């Protein structure tokens, strides 16, 4: 197998006396879907925050495409092609759906002030391209008819999809989804399942996923990592994880 796109090794995160993440290792290869599972409070989101630059990890290395990114600022990591969603939807609620997607493309746009004042052709072209890209992704997540609605007025499931579209317009290489199925009904979960597979197959993104919905996780993951109380418990293919006695114990408790 080729070199991993994301390679996390020996990751530790300490908050005062609490060791929230202890020696976690992960790797995501190109076009792979990797899931991180574990009981509530296991430290999955902390791992995410460390990787995406919202926390500065206490120890460990994080290589993205062979480059060390541990300790870099969140926006710099995003610019390298690694974007994330959040456990609680974080949209720009008072902006319209299309504007949410335009803001996300900020780093690809012509932000020259003079260009904007004078509406130069380069500026118009950049706006036009961003608009088209946004429309393309809205179509992908079936939100095109809501393009001019305020994002805060969308239904919950739609907001979740918009958040994914907002990540995708930035043309990422690695998409990190933090509990994307939380609060969705079974039907929407199934759609999400298809969408995630679609993103990987059509747009060549790798996906790192935190999820509690076992049906979804087992169905789409290539690799699964289990974390319990901040420490890695097991990792492997869905079939291996399903039969792992430690995992069953962590989830169901000891008999």
């Amino acid at each position, binding site marked *: 197998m080729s070199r991993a796109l994301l390679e996390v090794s020996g990751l530790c995160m300490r908050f005062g006396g609490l060791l929230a993440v202890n020696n976690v290792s992960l790797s995501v290869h190109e076009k792979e879907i990797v899931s991180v599972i574990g009981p509530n409070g296991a430290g999955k989101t902390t791992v995410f925050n460390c990787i*995406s*630059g*919202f926390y500065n990890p206490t120890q460990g290395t994080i290589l993205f495409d062979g480059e060390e990114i541990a300790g870099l*600022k*969140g*926006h710099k990591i*995003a*610019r390298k092609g690694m*974007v*994330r969603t*959040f456990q609680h939807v*974080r*949209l*720009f*609620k*008072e*902006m*319209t759906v*299309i*504007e*949410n997607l*335009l*803001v*996300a493309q*900020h*780093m690809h*746009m*012509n*932000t020259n*002030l003079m260009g*904007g*004042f004078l*509406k130069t052709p380069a500026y118009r072209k950049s706006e036009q391209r961003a*608009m*088209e890209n*946004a*429309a393309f992704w*809205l179509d992908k997540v079936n939100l*095109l*008819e809501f*393009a*001019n609605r305020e994002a805060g007025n969308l239904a919950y499931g739609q907001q979740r999809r918009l958040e994914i579209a*907002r*990540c995708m317009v*930035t043309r990422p290489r690695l998409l990190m989804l933090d509990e994307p199925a939380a609060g969705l009904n079974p039907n929407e979960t199934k759609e999400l399942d298809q969408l995630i597979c679609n993103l990987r197959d059509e747009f060549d993104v790798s996906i790192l996923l935190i999820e509690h919905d076992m049906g979804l996780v087992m169905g789409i993951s290539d690799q699964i990592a289990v974390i319990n109380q901040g420490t890695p418990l097991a990792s492997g293919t869905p079939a291996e994880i399903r039969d792992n006695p430690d995992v069953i114990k962590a989830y169901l408790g000891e008999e």
Partner: protein
Amino acid sequence: MNRTLYPAIFAAIVTLILTSMMLGIKLKTEGINLTLHSAEGSTWTMIFVATAVVFLFQLFRNQLTGLVKLPTLPTVESMLPEGKKGDRIKTLAVCFIVAAALIWPFYASRGAVDLATLALIYIMLGLGLNIVVGLAGLLDLGYVAFYAVGAYTYALLSLYYDVSFWVALPICGLLAALFGFLLGFPVLRLRGDYLAIVTLGFGEIIRILLLNWTDVTGGPNGISRIPKPDIFGLEFSRRAKDPDNMPFHEFFGIAYDPSYKVIFLYLLALLLVLVTVYVINRLTRMPIGRAWEALREDDIACRSLGLNPTVVKLTAFTIGASFAGFAGCFFSARQGFISPESFVFIESAIILAIVVLGGMGSQLGVILAAIILTVLPELAREFQEYRMLMFGLLMVFMMIWKPQGLVPMKRPHLELSTGDKAK
């Protein structure tokens, strides 16, 4: 044929008017008077020949394009502001208001025009602070510091280096922006209340610096005799300071009237305000304007999408400060005298009150609030000592009844055209 005929006639008329004004009429000084002379016959012949050439060229433009490659004319659509056709009425209303504001001073009293000029300064300050507070959501209690920087920059430049108003104007804007940048760099990692306190401190530092740096700024005595702005080198005083120069009224051969100066200052302020309105209007539709809005709503999401929050905040702070710099430059030119007393904290508070009262982020609201807050105290002069009380009461009731301000912000939403693409 009509499609080329009308533009051709129009172009010919424009050429005729412009060239005859520029070449056909000569001004000559006889003694102390200026007299108008018509140019010689040969010049007039040349003018008519030129007009005919322009007419014929425009008439056969299409045929000529086939032979030689000519630059294309801009289409009308490309010059119209973006937006729907439904905005026509709005555009018309804006044009009407601007025209009224342009004509009004010639019929109003001198005092009223002077007051209006003051209101325009506050509009400019309000609009500038609106970028920082209303659009980017950063509470700035020391905005007056940038106003002071602009005012003192012009005053000191003209005092020590004899720099004219028009040269100083961009320098004032740039210097105020630089101060905004320098202050913003360390403090913008602070949030909300903490940022407010630091900016408050900064405002005081600038004022106290101006007060105590007596050698340069004159301390509490301030700087007086700051030259008024001129128009293409023509001054508005009775006698020109520079013997080579000619005052405005002599150049046009009209009697001296001090109200010309007042009207000119008003029109200049109006021009500055219009530029400010246009620039901010554009900014809110540009990527940077969207980034401000997004950052105000959720800075964590912004970071996760690759927007650098510090840079985005810093642009808001810097651009906002530069407008205060322009306003300050104009203020010192208009007053002719400035001292640190003009830049106390209450000024910051009034500007902030204008923004909050008008509706954060709303341009129209800020303009209305600035007019109300400057004109109302003047109108209520009869109530003497009660007027500040009334002013306070008005603010309290406004905030209870209309907490979003006079005209709540309605951001220009960019819309996806629902034409062929959307469906």
